């Protein structure tokens, strides 16, 4: 075999034996190191999974949403507005949408009432799983809401939306157009906003510019902008958490420094003997380098696997409150496992680099001890 590989193999062999000889000390370091990786990796995995989820959900939304503004506030789309847009090249479909919010004093939460694209029988509702849980509803049950005009409306629950869509549909109530207009006393012919689908993503901005030109009192909202906003919010939250954890990082670096510099008398003797039997300073540094690499790798692996289980098996119980936000009708959801190469590389920079930097000087001190000074002591 290649003599270089042979040499490294022997060094690793020796290092492992020497690590095993000081079990408690090294296990302690490994535990702290692994815990640090675990915390950082949990944050990164969680945020990345949320970002993926947001992208997946927004994939099905219309490319452009057009709202009408009156005095800077969102207003209803009056009759004839949709026609005024006319034919814009690149727009595949345009439709008026009906949706609104309803405050339910029973559970003290806001619901989103919406008329879906498909037919729903008048008098029935399709409700989101969060709402069904909170009000204890099942298909076939009757539920009544007092509308904003004071009248009481009774509906039958036709279906509960699938659990899989809970992230987007926890507070959703789908109903027919007729019921919607009656419940909110929505003026006939009016819509909440307009959804446009554009086939070519590169034309979206042009379409939006044309819309803003044709209808100066409107505000086009682009899907890519929403996506961008989500991405920056998640990144920002992740960055904040990581910055807060920087204190832990420093503490860890100090611990690593301390552990590495607090050589026991036995260890010093060991290095002294190694040098006396012909090891060079470079060899001792190499051995210590392998020691650091092995500890780092083990901690990285343990911490990362732990974080993976934490986030995707136990739903990130430790970080939920910080990273997810809060609401009465909060969706219960499990994240789809996703590993991001960039996050792994970043995590490596955040943990292995400070560790290595912290142990460099102590390693050198140990490696340059004079054999006779140690053995005589």
């Amino acid at each position, binding site marked *: 075999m290649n003599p270089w590989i042979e040499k490294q193999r022997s060094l690793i062999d020796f290092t492992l034996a020497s690590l095993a000889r000081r079990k408690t000390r090294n296990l302690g370091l490994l535990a702290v190191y692994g815990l640090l990786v675990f915390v950082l990796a949990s944050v*990164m995995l969680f945020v990345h999974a949320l970002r993926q989820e947001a992208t997946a959900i927004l994939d099905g939304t219309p490319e452009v949403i057009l709202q009408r503004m009156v005095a800077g506030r969102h207003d209803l789309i009056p009759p004839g507005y949709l026609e005024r847009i006319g034919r814009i090249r690149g727009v595949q479909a345009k439709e008026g949408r009906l949706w609104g919010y309803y405050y339910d004093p029973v559970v003290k939460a806001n619901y989103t009432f919406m008329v879906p694209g498909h037919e729903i029988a008048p008098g029935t509702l399709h409700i989101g799983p969060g709402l069904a849980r909170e009000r204890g509803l099942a298909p076939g049950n009757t539920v009544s809401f007092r509308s904003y005009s004071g009248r009481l409306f009774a509906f039958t629950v036709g279906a509960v939306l699938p659990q899989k869509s809970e992230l987007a549909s926890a507070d959703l109530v789908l109903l027919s157009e007729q019921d919607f207009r009656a419940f909110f006393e929505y003026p006939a012919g009016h819509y909440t906003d307009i959804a446009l689908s554009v086939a070519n993503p590169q034309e979206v*901005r042009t379409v939006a510019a044309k819309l803003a030109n044709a209808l100066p009192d409107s505000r086009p909202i682009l899907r*890519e902008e929403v*996506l*961008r906003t989500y*991405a*920056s919010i998640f*990144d*920002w939250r*992740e*960055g*904040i958490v*990581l*910055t807060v954890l920087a204190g832990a990082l420093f503490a860890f670096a100090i611990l690593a420094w301390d552990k590495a510099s607090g050589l026991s008398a036995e260890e010093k003797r060991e290095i002294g003997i190694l040098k006396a039997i012909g090891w060079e*300073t*470079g060899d001792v*540094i190499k051995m210590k380098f392998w020691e650091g690499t092995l500890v780092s790798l083990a901690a990285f692996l343990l911490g990362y696997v732990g974080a993976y289980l934490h986030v995707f098996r136990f739903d990130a119980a430790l970080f939920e409150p910080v990273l997810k936000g809060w609401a009465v009708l909060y969706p219960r959801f499990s994240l789809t496992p996703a590993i991001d*190469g*960039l*996050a792994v*590389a*970043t995590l490596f*920079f*955040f943990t292995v*680099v*400070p560790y*290595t*930097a912290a142990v*460099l*000087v102590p*390693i*050198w001190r140990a*490696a*340059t001890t004079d054999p006779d000074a140690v053995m005589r002591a």
Partner: protein
Amino acid sequence: MLFQPAIIALLMASALGVAMLAAAAPFAVQVIRRWDIRSGSELQLALERRTYLFSTLVTFVLAIQLVALLLFVFNADRMAVMFVGAMCAVGTLNANAYGFPALLAQMALFFLAAMWLAVNHVDTRGRDYPLVKIKYGLLVALLPVLATVLGLQWQYFANLQADVITSCCGSLFSGEAKGLSGDLSALPAKPALIGFYAALGIAIAAAGHTAWHRTFGYATAAASAVAFAAAIAGTLSFLSLYIYEHPHHHCPFCILKPEYDWQGYWLYVPLFAATAAGLSVGAIQPFRRVASLAAVIPAVTGRLAAVAAWGFLLFAAVASVMILRSNLILIE
């Protein structure tokens, strides 16, 4: 904009590197002025001991910078979603005036770091620290480069504004664009193809010869530099077209995207590794005459040249496969 994990990591790595090199600089000056291998004085012994620390430290800093280049590009590509008009890393780097200078500085640091590491490697193999003064002289010269990288990165990341509309790669790398990128993109495919394979062939031949006979080290270094330039020009001029199967998309960064199966990493990693190895061959040639390195330098030269030859060969093979697999017909 600074609250991005990858940005924090990059800045941390650069700042740590600058701090470490700055800590090493006074020692480097001391070595340059007071080093005397024949002396047995206490100072000399202390210096000899300390070289181990600072060599390890600088190796660590520079090795980190090698990885940082990859992270920088990876991150730039990922951040493209945040800028209006950006489709890939180009848009992100173009978001302000410091993006491309930061990338180029990081690339320059990459090659300089590789060369320093080669000199250091040779030096540690010699019995009498033969290159110690030169090594630390070069180290002092590297410090401003690393500081520049940190400064540019800081300026770039701190001035990133999400509401800036940047230009996409389509406008920067097109035949009509002004500047070097436009000129390279406008290169006609056929001469570029010939130049590409000629430069790579010469580099492979030179590196292969150096690997076998351990001579012509400078030629290998020069051929590597030329091959690197030709490879980048070729990527801009025709290789990217074959990968995208599109006659006008010249971007050298979009090939790094998952949509194109990260094919760019298959090209750039061997290319950068080969170029770094080739340049390193040149970096250690001046010390062939040093007595204690008489046996070491040829061996290291051979190994580095072999890496360069295999790297360029791999790059050429990957590029050829990409061209042959493509459905685009550029040259009748």
